[in-house]
């Protein structure tokens, strides 16, 4: 079975532009979460979606938005890009909401490396 797939793998954008990152979860997984990993730091939680609804949001500005589609894939959108948005963006999928049990594991994709110039 395919793991979590993210596209594109690398991306270069100019300040002020908009970017869309995509994620396909593991087949059968209904929950997708997005994380931002700035160089030299641990990943920071951005969003969690479950059954196409936003279930949680981290401390990120409104320039960041996301959605989940009926097939459970997800998009992360970032508007008005800043240099500080340069990071590795990670998508994680899990079988369900983590409140359904402590053993729900999050599986991560390889990430999209975004560089803003």
């Amino acid at each position: 079975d395919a793991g979590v797939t993210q596209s594109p793998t690398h991306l270069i954008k100019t300040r002020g532009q908009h970017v869309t990152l995509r994620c396909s979860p593991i087949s059968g997984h209904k929950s997708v979460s997005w994380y931002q990993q700035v160089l030299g730091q641990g990943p920071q939680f951005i969003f969690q979606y479950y059954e196409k609804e936003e279930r949680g949001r981290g401390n990120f500005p409104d320039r960041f938005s996301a959605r989940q589609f009926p097939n459970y894939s997800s998009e992360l959108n970032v508007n008005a890009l800043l240099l500080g948005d340069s990071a590795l963006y990670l998508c994680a999928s899990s079988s369900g909401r983590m409140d359904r049990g402590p053993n729900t594991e999050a599986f991560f994709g390889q990430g999209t490396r975004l560089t803003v110039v």
Partner: protein
Amino acid sequence: AQSVTQLDSHVSVSEGTPVLLRCNYSSSYSPSLFWYVQHPNKGLQLLLKYTSAATLVKGINGFEAEFKKSETSFHLTKPSAHMSDAAEYFCVVRPPLVGGYNKLIFGAGTRLAVHP
């Protein structure tokens, strides 16, 4: 608030010697704790998890971690390092359910170097 502190940003060991990566957590409730590994240009892989069962947790590739509530620690160990263990390691806490969702809180990471 929940948080994790990884006490060493870099650890260097010789192949065949023990590995110790230190992690302290802060949590008002009994947390779920994890260790993830990130190899260059690869995604995060779960090494092991603690979810209030046995305090000594065994993971993949010979790693294990011990949950010590009195010390609020969850240190990662391996008896004998292998060259392939060189990577970035993250200690992670998952706080109890809040508002219908859950999230992972990552430490800053420890870069493990293994020398021949």
